[in-house]
């Protein structure tokens, strides 16, 4: 499943990041990488972007990006 499929409040571990675009590399520098636990906080009023909680801070990314982040619930 991808980060998009989580419900608000659900936590998971990132298993794979599916592309190696500049934006993905940037996200990795922000700590979004394999093995990092994330919590899906909520999506914005119009459904996109989403807000996640990881490494103790909150980050907002678009759904198109979240699509390429694979996760596993725990």
């Amino acid at each position, binding site marked *: 499943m991808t980060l998009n499929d989580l419900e608000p409040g659900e936590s998971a571990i990132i298993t794979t990041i599916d592309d*190696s675009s*500049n*934006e993905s*590399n*940037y*996200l*990795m*520098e*922000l*700590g979004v*990488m394999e093995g990092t636990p994330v919590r899906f906080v*909520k999506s*914005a*009023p*119009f*459904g*996109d*972007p989403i*807000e996640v909680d990881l*490494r*103790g*801070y*909150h*980050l*907002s*990314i*678009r759904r198109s*990006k979240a699509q390429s982040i694979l996760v596993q619930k725990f």
Partner: protein
Amino acid sequence: MPVTSVIPKTNNIALVGNPNTGKTSVFNALTGLRQKVANYPGVTVEKKTGSFSVNSTTFTVYDLPGLYSLIPKSLDDKISTEIIYNHNNDVELSCIVVVVDAANLSRNLYLFTQILDLQIPVVMALNMIDVADKKGIKIDIEGFKKEFNIPVIPLIASKRSGLAELKNTISDLVTNPDISQQKYMPIPDEITKCIGDFRNFVKNGFCESEVSLTARSLRIISSDHVLQDWIDKIDNTKIDEAQQSLAKARKRLLESNQHWSMLETKLRYQWIDEVLKTYVHTSKTDKQSLSDRIDKILTHKVGGLFIFFIVFAMIFQAIFSWAELPMALIEDGTNWLGQMVTQLIPAGALQDMIVDGAIAGVGSILVFLPQILFLFFFLSILEDTGYMARVAFMLDRVMNSIGLSGRSVIPLLSSFACAVPGIMASRTIQNWRDRLVTIMISPFMSCSARLPVYVLLIGAFIPQGSFLGIVSYSALTLLAMYTLGIVAAILVALVFKKFIVRTMPSSSFVLELPAYHRPNLRYTFLQLLERVKIFVTDAGKIILAMSIVLWFMASYPKSDESDTSNSSQKIEQSYAGKIGKFIEPAIKPLGFDWKIGVGLLTSFAAREVMVSTLATIYNVEGADETSGSLKESLKNDRDPVTGELLYSPLTAISLMVFFVLACQCMATVAIVKRETNSWRWPITMIAYMTGLAYLASLLTFQIGSYLGIGV
């Protein structure tokens, strides 16, 4: 006599850290008011420097823009990394103070470890200790000191606690720099082996420490983006060799089961995770933090948008009502100054130029300063609380549909008050393409200077009565003008994105949502002061020059009869009048005559000058947009030859459409020049906006006439 060779000490300190960690707060606390703001050469990123002394030794402090990593993403990042690496050989740093957010250690330590590898003396300023405490984060500071072998100073910058210790530590470190014990990122031997040859290749031509060389080589290997930057800088003849050496290193890494992609980043976070496990303990609190509870309300699916509208409606209301008094004072002030000069300087060209040109011109722009200030005041407070990031978050979807991102919302909204602060607010947009498009469409938002013109024309020409008995035609017209501006902005944004700036990297949206907190007023005022300086000094020069040119055109050559009582004739004789007559054939199809032509020219100083120009032409003393006499004169003006009424409601609508779309504001032009650092974009802006305005007015008037509406 023995010659003592004194090595000149630079004593330059840089504050480096992630965005929002309190760098500027530390900077302000260290330097007090001993600071100055300038621009980095060639770009419009602010360069803040200040100084402080310990035992009569003076240190110069640089407040760098926040960044997440030494791999630059935005213009701000580039500036920071260039200073850190001393690329331009201008600032040699004797110490870097890394400001680390104690409540957000994991990601903050990433940049910190990158800085450690540079082998420059480092101090860790562990800021926001109070916030960390509240979150139940316990940090073993002695442990950190041992692990990294550097000074670690716990701080609460906003309360100035820990500052004396920070100053002393910096002073000690700079007088006695010893980095031999300073830790750097451990790299497994097998990886060091794989990249060894490439490292030697990178080394050529650079003199830097072994550690920092290894780190840099690893960074180049880890990311194609960094690789490209590096390749761009090396000698053309060596590129092939470089590529081969790199390919070999990557292959060897793969052979020893290490994927090279983002390897540096992975290693760093591995180290960080270990360090955090050893020295940091978080007591789990089940209760939701206050920030989370506030956020639930402020970004609620329905309520959040509603609150957003209320907040901004209130801000606009405040801007308009609170700014009234200071605006009146500034107007009186300019008048008074004009009178003083009239008394001091003998009548003549010089007096005219100073009073009617410079003072009146600059005064007409200065009246907007209170509005600009109020707007900035509210915006920077909202920014400081963390609410702005939420606005960008909530509205990103909407902006995305026209190819922009949520970061453009604030600049565009601010432009409804005045495009100048709006364009200045666009600096928070990381993506240059987004920023440029935002700047280019900001002037379409109907600003407060257009309002007097709308009010005059609607009052004079739009019939009384209401649509379906609910909304008056006047209100409807006003609404239509605002909507027209928004629609134009959307269309232009789409066109720009598609055709003009498409080669630049496309819009993306990755935004940190910081915890909410109480704003810091002292800090807000400091920021406000900077903005005023920029507006008055940078834009002011251009405005002054243009004011004098416009004045000259409107008052020369003087008519021979020197019949001073008839100002209308004076204008007709002037260059502006002549140009007005000259362009009359071109603007006739829009429904305008030469008098409006003159108004269009002079209103370039500022839109509302249109009203006073028309007043001068019609010889109405002291008229403003609500004055009955000017309205009547406009309404009843007749063609001297045919005796028909000159202006119809359709003319008025056509003229308003022109005002919505045309770029008649030299303050905007000046600020665009400043923010884009070239004349290319302001000139493009004038050209396309004028073209668009002409076309739209033409269509309005011609179609209207054809259908017989409002003639």
